[in-house]
C-alpha cells in the first residue's frame, strides 16, 4: 500500500523529472570541457607515442649507429634497415624505413635505442591515402627530427629522471 502511494506521489509531482533537470541545469551553467579540435588541442604527455623521427647530435651528426635493435625488437616488423661502413670507419645506415601502416606505435624502438636516435614525437596529425608515402624513409625521418628537435629534446629532458 505504502509503495503504491509513493509511486503515485512521484508520478504526479514530476519529482524525478525535476531531479534530472537540476543536473542538466548544473552542467548547463558549469565551465565546459569540450575541446574544439582542431582549433583547440588537449595537453599531450612528453611520453606521447606519435610520428617517428630520427635525431641528430648538436654537431649535425646523425645519432643512429645502425645497431638494428629497433628492427629486431619491432613486433610488427615495420622497420627495415640496411647499413654499411662509412669511409671514416663508423657504421651508418644506408636505408632506414618505417612502414607507418605496419607500425603499432608501441614505442619499443624508442626504448631499445642505445643512442636515442629513433624517437616517437608528439605529432599525430598525419594521414596517408596510398601505400607508397606511408613508408617513412631515412631522409624524411631525419628532416622530421630536425624540424621538431627542440620539442623532442625538451620531452626527453622532462622524462630523463624516470628512465
Amino acid at each position, binding site marked *: 500500500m505504502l509503495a503504491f502511494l509513493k509511486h503515485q506521489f512521484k508520478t504526479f509531482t514530476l519529482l524525478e523529472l525535476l531531479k534530472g533537470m537540476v543536473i542538466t541545469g548544473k552542467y548547463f551553467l558549469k565551465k565546459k570541457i569540450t575541446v574544439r579540435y582542431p582549433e583547440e588541442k588537449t595537453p599531450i604527455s612528453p611520453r606521447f607515442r606519435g610520428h617517428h623521427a630520427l635525431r641528430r647530435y648538436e654537431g649535425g651528426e646523425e645519432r643512429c649507429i645502425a*645497431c*638494428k635493435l629497433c628492427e*629486431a625488437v619491432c613486433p610488427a616488423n615495420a622497420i627495415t634497415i640496411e647499413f*654499411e*661502413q662509412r669511409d671514416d670507419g663508423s*657504421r651508418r645506415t644506408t636505408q632506414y624505413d618505417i612502414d607507418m601502416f605496419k607500425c603499432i606505435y608501441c614505442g619499443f624502438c624508442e626504448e631499445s635505442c642505445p643512442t636515442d636516435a629513433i624517437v616517437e614525437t608528439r605529432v599525430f596529425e598525419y594521414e596517408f591515402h596510398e601505400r607508397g608515402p606511408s613508408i617513412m624513409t631515412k631522409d624524411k625521418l631525419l628532416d622530421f627530427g630536425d624540424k621538431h628537435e627542440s620539442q623532442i629534446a625538451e620531452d626527453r629532458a622532462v622524462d630523463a629522471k624516470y628512465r
Partner: protein
Amino acid sequence: MIKIEINGQMVKAHEGDMLIDVADDAHIAIPRFCYHKKLSIAANCRMCLVEVEGAPKALPACATPVTDGMKVQTKSVKAVAAQKSVMEFLLINHPLDCPICDQGGECELQDVAMQYGDDVSRFSEAKRVVADKNIGALIHTDMTRCIHCTRCVRFGQEIGGIMELGATGRSEWMEIGTYIEQSVISEMSGNMIDLCPVGALTSKPYRYSARPWELKSHHGISPHDSIGSNIIIHAKGNDVKRVVPADKESINEVWLSDRDRFAYEGINSEDRLTAPMIKENGKWRQVDWETALQFSADKLKHYAATPEMMGVLASPTATLEELYLLQKIARGLGVNNLDTRLRQQDFSLDSHGFVKPELKHSFAEVEKLDATLLVGSYLRHELPMLNHRLRKAQLAGKIVSSINTEKFEINYEINNEVVADDLLAELQLVVDALEKPESNNIDKVYKKIASSLSTAGKSSIMLGQISLMDVNFTKILKLTSDIARLSGAVLNVLPISANDVGAYMVNFLPEKGKNIQQMLTTQMKAFVNLSLEAESDITDGKLAIEAMRKAEFVLNFSLFDSEIQREYADVLLPIASFAETAGTFVNAMGTKQSFKMAVEPQGDSKAAWKVFRVLGNMLDLEGFDYTHSNQVFAEVLENNIETKNELVLEKIDIKIDKKKSIKNKTPLISIYEVDSITRRATALKTASKAVSETIIVTAPVQEVG
C-alpha cells in the same frame, strides 16, 4: 670410473678429469671465458668458480680435477656470489659498446652478463682504454674490449704454432698484442675470431656487414682443399656474409683454415658471370639459357663427329655430381679426352693406369703416425688442417722428415730435413740407406730418415703438390714406392683439391683418350671447360691459353667473367658456386660429404649439374632425367667405377737414370691462389701480400747466418 655429485645429480667421471669437462658432459652449464676444450688450461678468468664441499673457497671448475665422492654446487649462494663478483670485475673495464660491436648478439660475455651481471655498475672511476692494433687484413681488433682470457695467445702457441699474439704488462696495464708491430700471418689465424669470447678480435671482411641475428646458417663443405672442412655458411637474404667452422672432430675438429674461412668473398666478386654469353662473328652477345644451350648443343654435336679432336677439362674443385654428369655427356658423345689433373706435368704412367690420389690414413690416425716422410710438399699451405694433425704428432714425439725443393716455414720442428733442388737424387739416397744401412758413403740424415720409417710401428710417406707437379713425378713415385716397400711405410699421393678423389671416383680420366698434356699439345678442335681458369689453374698456363685460342670452339662453364676467357672462348655459361649448388665432395681420406644449396645462384647462373642435365637431354643422350642431385649421387655410388684403372706400381718397370736430372723447378702455387674463388677473395689477397712481405724482411737475416 668414479662418481661425483653436481647439484645433487650423480655423474660418472674418470679420475683426474677436470670438473668443467664432467659438467659439460652432463649438460650442467658452468659459465667460462678462458677455458676452451682444445686449448690448455689457464684458469685466469675465474668465471667458472663453483662451490666444492670441503674447500674453504670457491674453486675454478676448469682447473679442479674430480675426485671420488666430490660434491659440487654450481648454483649455490656461495658459487653464484663468486661468479657475480667475477662478472662485476670483468665488466669494470669492458666498454658498453655492444650496439656497435660486431660480436653483439653472439657474444659470450654478453650472454653470461645477462645471467650474472648487475644492471648498475658500482665503478665510477675512469675506464681503461687500449689502443687498437692493426694485425692484418683478416682480423680487426678492438683491444679495449679484451678481457684477457688469453685464448688467442694460447691458440697461437698451441695450435697455430707461431706465437704471434702475447700479453705485455700486468693487471690494469696488461695488453694483448703482437710484440713488434706486424701482421698475424698464421694460415689458421681466423680461428682467433671464433675463440675470442668478446668483440676484441672480429673478422675484418665481415665487419659491419650484418648483425648475427639476421644471418641464416647453412651447412656446407669447403671446396678449397681436400680436407673437406665442415663449414657453416652464414647468409643474410641471398648474400653469403661469412663462413665459420662446424664442429666435426674427425675432419676439421673445431678449426678452419683462413683459406676456407675468408674465400667466400670470391663468390660475391664483381667478376661473377651472371648471364649466358655467346660469341658470334667475334662479338659477345648476352642470350637466354635456351639459346645458349641450343647453340652449345649444336656445336657439340658438330664436333662430336670427330670425338678424338674434342677435349673436356674440369677443375677438381667441381662437385662429384658435376664431374660425373660432364664425363657422362662426354662419353655419351664418344669423347674420351677427359682430365682434371691440371697441375700434373708428367703423365708417362697413364698407359698403365692412374695414380689414385688418396690419404690412406684417417686424419685422426695421422696424429698417431710414428714416422712420416713428406716428399715435395709445403703441407702447411697445401692442406693446413692435415699439417695441424701432423704438427700434433710431431709435438707428441713422433718423427717427421721432409725432402723438399725449398726450405719452407713449417710451424714445428722437422726432425730430418733435406732441402735440395733435385728430389730424385735425395730419394735415391734414402733408398740406398734402406738397402745398405751399413754403407759409410751415405749422409747421416738419409740414414735417419730410412731408419725412422723402417723401425717405426706406423709410418707413412706423403707426396705433396711439389712432387705431383714435378716433371719427374713418375720417377719420384717409383723411388718413394721403393722406400715404402723397403721400409714398410704407407705411400700416399696426397689429393690437394677438394675433389681430386671424386674425379678419380667417377673416372674423369683419359681412360682411352688423351690426357691434358696431349690435349694441349696436339691441335684440338673443341674444348669444354668446367669452372676452369686455364691461365692460372693449369701449370703451363700459356700453353693452355694458346691451345684454347687455336681451337675452333671453346665452351666454358664458368663462375667468373674475364678478359682472357672472352678472348679464347665461344660460349660462356654461368654456373653456381659451392654455396649456391647442392653436391658432394670426396675428401682426402675418401669421406663423401654432401651439402645442400645455401643461397640462390647469383644473377642468371644455374647449378652446373642442372645445366648438364638439360644439355644431356638436348644432345639426345640416355639417362639424363634427374630431378634431384641425390639421384646423380646415388648413380655414382651404384656404378662404382673407381677401381678399374688403379695403377699398380710394382708391376711397372720404371728406369731411373743415375745422371742428375735436368732441374726444372715448378713455381709454387700461392696458398691463396688455388682456385678461381680464392683468387678473388680480396682480404686473402691482402693477407698473402703480408705473408710475402714478411718473408722479404727475414731474408737478410738468413744471409747473415
